[in-house]
Structure formats: structure tokens, C-alpha cells
């Protein structure tokens, strides 16, 4: 089964994302900041990561850079999901190795379209 790690400091967002992802038949795990996410990734790598940008302790972009530097850390498909919606942030995310980018607010349609685009699900 494919797995997706949901990283967001908002419990509400994690719940919404979890519901959508489970409907898409992903096994989900959750972390409330980059540090927690990194620890989970050190234990085992998920297929995908849905990643917020601004979080306490460790931000999404810091997590992404650390993940990509890990052995095997190039494998997980990382999709940002953030309120940051300017070109500079998207550019920075691409450079850090993000596969796709969702600008909040999002819904299941956008999430599914993005996951289909990066080949995580069939259409």
C-alpha cells in the first residue's frame, strides 16, 4: 500500500488531508512539524509527503532539504501544501527538490489532480 506522511501544524488540516488521502487509499502518518516528520522518515520512508511550509521547530523547506540529503531521501514524492502563494516560494521549493506544490486553500479535487500529475495515482 502507498503511504503518505502529512506534515502540518494544524490539526484540522491534517484531519482534512487524512480523510482525502484515505479515500485515495493511502496509508497515512502525521507529524506536526519538520522535526517530527524527519524522525518518522528516519524510521521508514513514505511513498509521499504532503508538506506545510510554516511550522514551529522545523519548517517544511528545512525538512525537505534534510530529507533529500538522507540516504534514499530522493525517493519520496514531496508535495508542498501551503498558504505561501508567490512565485519566489514555489521557485525555492522546486530548487529544494519538491515534486509539486499546492496553494491553500485546497480541496480533494486539487489534491487528486496534483497526485495524478506526479504519478502517485492513476486518473
Amino acid at each position, binding site marked *: 500500500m502507498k503511504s503518505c506522511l502529512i506534515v502540518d501544524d494544524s490539526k484540522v488540516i491534517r484531519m482534512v488531508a487524512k480523510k482525502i488521502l484515505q479515500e485515495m487509499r493511502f496509508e497515512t502518518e502525521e507529524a506536526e512539524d519538520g522535526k517530527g516528520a524527519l524522525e518518522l522518515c528516519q524510521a521508514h520512508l513514505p511513498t509521499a509527503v504532503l508538506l506545510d511550509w510554516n511550522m514551529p521547530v522545523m519548517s517544511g523547506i528545512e525538512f525537505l532539504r534534510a530529507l533529500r540529503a538522507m540516504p534514499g531521501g530522493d525517493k519520496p514524492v514531496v508535495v508542498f501544501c501551503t498558504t505561501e*502563494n508567490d*512565485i519566489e516560494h514555489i*521557485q525555492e521549493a522546486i530548487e529544494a527538490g519538491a515534486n*509539486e506544490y499546492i496553494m491553500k486553500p*485546497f480541496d480533494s479535487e*486539487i489534491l487528486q*489532480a*496534483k497526485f*495524478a*500529475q506526479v504519478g502517485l495515482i492513476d486518473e
Partner: protein
Amino acid sequence: MKPDDFDYVSRLLRERSGLVLTRDKAYLLESRLMPLARKRGLKGLDDLMMALKKRDAALETLVVEAMTTNESFFFRDNKPFDQFKSIVLPNLIKARAARKSFRIWSAACSSGQEPYSLAMLLREESARLNGWKIDIVGTDISREILDKARSGTYSQFEVQRGMPMALLVKYFKKKDENWVIDPAIKSMVQYKELNLLGDLRGLGQFDVVFCRNVLIYFDQPTKSKVLNAISQIMADDAVLYLGGAETVLGVSDKFKPVPGQRGIYALARGDGASSLGAPPG
């Protein structure tokens, strides 16, 4: 709405745009016409019907526009665009090598996502298309939606549906809450107001036709009439793309499916092997 009035509007729609509206869609008609009535300073649907029955052409156009479904998104369904890039484009580059030009038509282009997706795709492949002249023509019956297409301005929601982020940062600029397409991409597409039920011949001949998610609104005779007319302005080896819920089978004998390529059709009069849709073999 009175049954007579419903019949009147549904006949008007069928004649003017091909749209088939069954009785169970009466609620849709009411909900789309109410705002129109208000915009015109009319009290309600009865007043609107009275004005309409005086055969006010401008009002008829507005009614047709109000009833069209304009939903569209960038790289809709992905696969047709992948297929265009990996099969049709290489075939075009070979088959049109002598004149170095080809023409693409997005029939029923709505707010422009389809022709702009093709324009971006071709821009990404520009290394292979040096010195080529490529026409992309987008047509639609709705003037209002064409204005939006020409503006090249999309909401955050619209640019997220289907557009890879790499293309978003490359070809769009943010303006307030919206995203505006690069003038260089915009200039690759020419827009024209056109009713698919009318005379298509003024458009010239095409090598690739996208006619997606519009035939579904028509009845069978209208579908076949439109498909036959489209076939007449296609080059012998040209290809036609239909939407996911559309087919030529049982509708028009002018086309045949390209084997193994869902949603893509070649002309029956052409020879299958040399169709632009045939996998290079």
C-alpha cells in the same frame, strides 16, 4: 417556470447552440436565467420570457451564453497532452518537414486553458521546432468566455487544476490574487468567436483538432453533423481529440479510432498507417 416557457427556451438553445436541455434540467435553466433577468433590470423570469419572445437577438445570445458549461482546466486529463507530445508532435515534425508549419484548432476552447496548454507544451519543445510556424486557433460560441481567454488571467484555483508547478512559475506572473499568462504564450493563440453548428470552412485546414467536452451537450444528429463538418477541414492525416466521455463510434463514419490510443481519432478517408496519430513504427 411554465412548461411552455421551458419548451420555448429549450428550442431556442437547441437551434442556436445545439444544447439539449431535458425537462429535468428546468431548475438549471431557472437558476442561470434569474441573474440575467436581474442584470437586465427585469423583475423575474416572466418578464425575461416576454422580452425573449420579442426575438431580441442580443438577449438570445446572452441566454445561450448563460446556459453553456464553461468548465475547463489546464492539461485536462493529462494523457491526451502526453500523447500529443510523444506521438503526434514527432509525427508532425517528420510529415511537415518540407513546409515547416502546422495548425492546431481548439474547438470550444472555453476560457483558454486547452489552447494555452498546447502553447506551453510547444514552447517547452521549441528546441525541436526552430524555424517552424505554428498556428493555434481557439474558438468558442461564447463571447464572454473568449474575453476571459484573451485576458489570460486565472484564479489560484484555476491554475492549480492540472498545471505542473514548473510551468506555473515559468509562464505565469502573479497579479494581485490572480495569475496572468506570459504574453509570449498568449500571442501563440488566436481566438475567434465561432458556432460549431455554423459554417466552419472559413477557418482553413487543420492538422490537429481538439474538440473536447462539447459534443456531450448535443443530441445525436447534431453530434454527427458537427463531426462531419470538422472532418472536412482536416488534412487527410490529421487527428481529432475528443473528451473522455465522447466517441465517434455510432455517431460519424468520417472517423475511426487510432488503435491503442483512447480518445484519438483519424480520418476514415486517410490511410491508417500514415495518420499523425499512429505510433512511429
